[in-house]
């Protein structure tokens, strides 16, 4: 079955340090990969996506993500975290083989950036 995993429930990082949020997915044809961020009492905001081409994708607010086909991963990164990056982050995947194109979301990773 197709699945998405975010292995860390929470990531703690000091402001100014690099931030990484991990995402892995099951292999089932070509994946289309997305990252979203959710602030309290808000909907999900789109950060970036990988469809094809360059494995390194740059998105909003200084975030980037690297698609690694051999490791079936799509980790989200930011070189220097801000306190305002504290939020809930979701990885989502669609598979080319899924005719319905249903998004599978990970369980989410809470990011806490301390001053």
């Amino acid at each position, binding site marked *: 079955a197709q699945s998405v995993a975010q292995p860390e429930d929470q990531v703690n990082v000091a402001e100014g340090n690099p931030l990484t949020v991990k995402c892995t997915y099951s292999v089932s044809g070509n994946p*289309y990969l*997305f990252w*979203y961020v959710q602030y309290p*009492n*808000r*909907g*999900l*905001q*789109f950060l970036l*996506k990988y*469809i094809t081409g360059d494995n390194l994708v740059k998105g909003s607010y200084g975030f980037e993500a690297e698609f690694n086909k051999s490791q079936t991963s799509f980790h989200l990164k930011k070189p220097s975290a801000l306190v305002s990056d504290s939020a809930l982050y*979701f990885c*989502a995947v*669609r598979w*080319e083989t*899924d005719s*319905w*194109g*249903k*998004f599978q*979301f*990970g*369980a*989410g990773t809470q990011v806490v950036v301390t001053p």
Partner: protein
Amino acid sequence: EAGVVQSPRYKIIEKKQPVAFWCNPISGHNTLYWYLQNLGQGPELLIRYENEEAVDDSQLPKDRFSAERLKGVDSTLKIQPAELGDSAVYLCASSLRSGSLTDTQYFGPGTRLTVL
């Protein structure tokens, strides 16, 4: 450009009462989604519309949930009767093209439902 609009933002009802949520997608977006998000979890798809047609409603509990998207624009999601376990956030999202796997989904702020 206005984003996805949802109303109400919050709703508190007694169990067994009906409730309805409304969504207005981004103008020109053909595909509309309703998701359920439980606390601390990722969204789960309830139903997807391509224009007026519900093309994926396999996760919609049809005994109590119903949805419609008349004229292919606004949509309503209804629960009747509501149960305690329905307490969650109901998210609406839209994307531009029908049948596209690569289009970004844009989410509304959600409706937080509390069933007492």
